C-alpha cells in the first residue's frame, strides 16, 4: 500500500473527541475545541511529530479520526484550506446558531454562503 499523501504545510491536527464527538484541535498541552488554539506545524519534522501524537492519542482512546489538515494562517489563527475542514471548524453553514460558529469566538466566514 502506498503511504498516505502528506498534506502541504503548515498543518494542524484535527480529530473528534471520543466521548462527546466534538471536533477538537491538538494544542501544545492537549486538545481544544478552539481552532485558534491549535498547534501549528510549519515543517516536516513538526508535522510528523504531530501526526504521531494523533496516533498515540487514538490508541489511548481519547480521540478518533485524528489527521493532519493543511491551513492558511490569518488573524483569527489557522484556517483549513479545504472547505470541508473549514466547515468542521465552524458548524453547519445553514444553521449559524449551531456548532463552533455559534459560540461567537470565531467569525463564520471563509465558507461561501449560498444566498441567491
Amino acid at each position: 500500500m502506498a503511504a498516505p499523501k502528506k498534506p502541504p504545510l503548515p498543518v494542524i491536527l484535527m480529530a473528534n473527541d471520543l466521548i462527546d464527538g466534538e471536533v477538537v484541535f491538538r494544542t501544545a498541552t492537549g486538545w481544544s475545541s478552539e481552532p485558534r488554539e491549535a498547534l501549528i506545524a510549519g515543517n516536516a519534522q513538526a508535522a510528523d511529530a504531530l501526526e504521531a501524537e494523533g496516533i498515540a492519542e487514538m490508541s489511548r482512546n481519547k480521540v478518533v479520526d485524528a489527521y493532519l489538515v493543511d491551513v492558511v494562517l490569518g488573524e483569527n489563527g489557522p484556517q483549513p484550506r479545504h472547505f470541508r475542514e473549514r466547515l468542521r471548524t465552524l458548524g453547519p453553514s445553514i444553521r449559524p446558531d449551531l456548532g463552533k460558529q455559534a459560540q461567537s469566538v470565531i467569525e463564520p466566514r471563509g465558507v461561501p454562503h449560498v444566498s441567491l
Partner: protein
Amino acid sequence: MYRYDEFDSRFVRERVREFRAQVERRLDGSLTEDEFKPLRLQNGLYLQLHAYMLRIAIPYGTLSSRQLRQLALIADRYDRGYGHFTTRQNLQFNWPKLKDVPDILDLLADVEMHAIQTSGNCIRNVTADHFAGVAADEVEDPRPTAELIRQWSSLHPEFSFLPRKFKIAVTGAEHDRAAIKAHDIGLRILRRPGTGEIGYEVIVGGGLGRTPMIGKVVREFLPRADLLSFLEAIMRVYNLEGRRDNKFKARVKILVHEIGAEEFRRRVEQEFAALDGPSVNADPEEVKRIAAYFAPPPYEELPERSVKLSIAKAAHRDFARFVETNVFAHRVPGYAAVTISLKPIGGVPGDATSEQMRIIAELAERYSFGEIRVTYMQNLVLPHVRNDELFALWEALDAAELATANASLVTDIISCPGLDYCSLATARSIPIAQSLSRRFADGARQREIGPLGIKISGCINACGHHHIGNIGILGLEKNGAEYYQLTLGGDATENAALGERLGPGLAAEEVPDAVEKIVNVYLQERSVGEEFIATYRRLGIAPFRQAFEKGVEGDQHAAH
C-alpha cells in the same frame, strides 16, 4: 399499529443493555475503534462532521403520537431541539454525545422504538408505502409483511456482517410509492391471477449510489408462507458471493449484474430448495397475529361528500389550495390522508423542531386516531382525517407554520443532509434546496408547473435519490470547490427510470437559473395536462439540453 409483546420488549431492552456495555468497553479500550465502528453503526450511531449522529428507526414509516412526543423530548434533552426525517423514513439527531446514547435508547425502548440496523453492513430498516392501509389501489396492507421482516432481520446471526448494507422495501399497491425497484429487495404484494391467492413479486438488485440500477424480478409469485425462507436464500447467496474486494462493488446489484439475473435467480432457487422452509418460515398463526395489529381504526360511517369541506373551500382560497395539493383520497368514504409538508419555503427539507413534533402529535390525536406516517419524501402524513375536520386541521397547521401547500410540487424537494452535516458528503445539498425553494416560492407558479420532483444528493452515495428525481442534482467536488451535476428524467414510481446527465457541472450559484431554464422548456412544450416527466419522455433530453447549453455558454460569454 403494531404493539410489542413481552418478547419484543425484552429483546429491545437486551439490545440497549448490550450497547451500553459496548460503549463502556469502547471507553475502557476493550474494543478498538475498528471493532466498535461496525457495532455502533449497527445501532444507528455515526460519527459525522461535527458530532455523533443517531439514526432512529421508524419501521415502515408508522409512528404514534406518543412516540413522536418522545422524540421531541429526546430532541430537547439530548440534542439541539430538532430532528431530521430522512429519505428512508428514519429520524436523525445530529448532536448526541456517545455517553448519552444508551440513555436515549432506553427512552426509545419506553415507547417501543429502537435504532437497530439503521446503518451498517446488515439488513436495514424496512420501508413501505406511506399510504399503507389508506390507498384505494392496495391489494393488501404491506405493514404486516414489513413488521415480520423487521423481526426476522433484527440481530440475525447469519446476516449481520454482509459485504455491504441491504435495504428492503414493501408495497401492497399498484402505484409504487416505496421505490421498490431502487432497493436491494423490493416486494410487491399481489394476487395470483386465476386463484386470487396472495403472495409476492420479488425484485432484487435495484439501488442508487455510484452504479444506479433498476431491480430485476427474480420470482414472479412467491407464496406468502415461503417469505422468510426465500429471503434467507437470497441473503445467503449474497453473503457468500457478494464482492468483498471493493466497497463500491459490494452491493447485491453488482452481483446480480455481474453474474446475470438468470444465474442469480438459479442460485437463489437452488438455495431455497435446499433450505428446510418449515423450520425457517413464520407459521400462519404468527402472520395473523401480526396482521391483527394493523386492523383499520374505528372509522365512522360518513357520507362521501362533506358539505362542511365544500363551504370551507369556497370561503378560503388558501385552504382550497392546500386541499388540492396536500390531501390524498382515502379508501374509506368521508376520510382523507393529509400531507404535512416539512418543506417550508427556504427551510431545511425534513427538519422538524421539537415544538412542531409536539403540535403534530397533538393534532394526530385530535384528528387521526393518534397515527402519523413518515414518507421517504421527508414529509409527515396524518393518515385518517375526517373530511369534515380538514379545515380545522388546516387552521391549526397554518398557525404552526406547517401548512405549506406544496406536496409533490417543485418546492417539495428531497435533500440529503450533505456536507453541512455528513462526513461522507463531497458538497453541500441543503443550501441548493433552499435556493431553489426560494426561486420557486410563488404558489401560483408552483401550481402552474404541477408535479415535479427535484432530488438532491451531496455525494455519489445518493441518499437524496438524485438518480430517480425528475430533476436530479448531485453535489461533487473539484479542485477544492463544490459543483453540481444535473440529471433529467428520473422516476421513482412503478415506471422507475434513471435520469440522464444534462451537461457539464455548475457552480452552486448557477443551479437555480439552470433549473428554471429546464422548467421553462417544459412549460413551453407541454401539451394540455401533461406532467413534466411525460413531456420529458415524449421529447427526450435534446430540447432541455439545448436550453441548458445556451445558458452555460451565455454565462461564459458574459464572464469574458
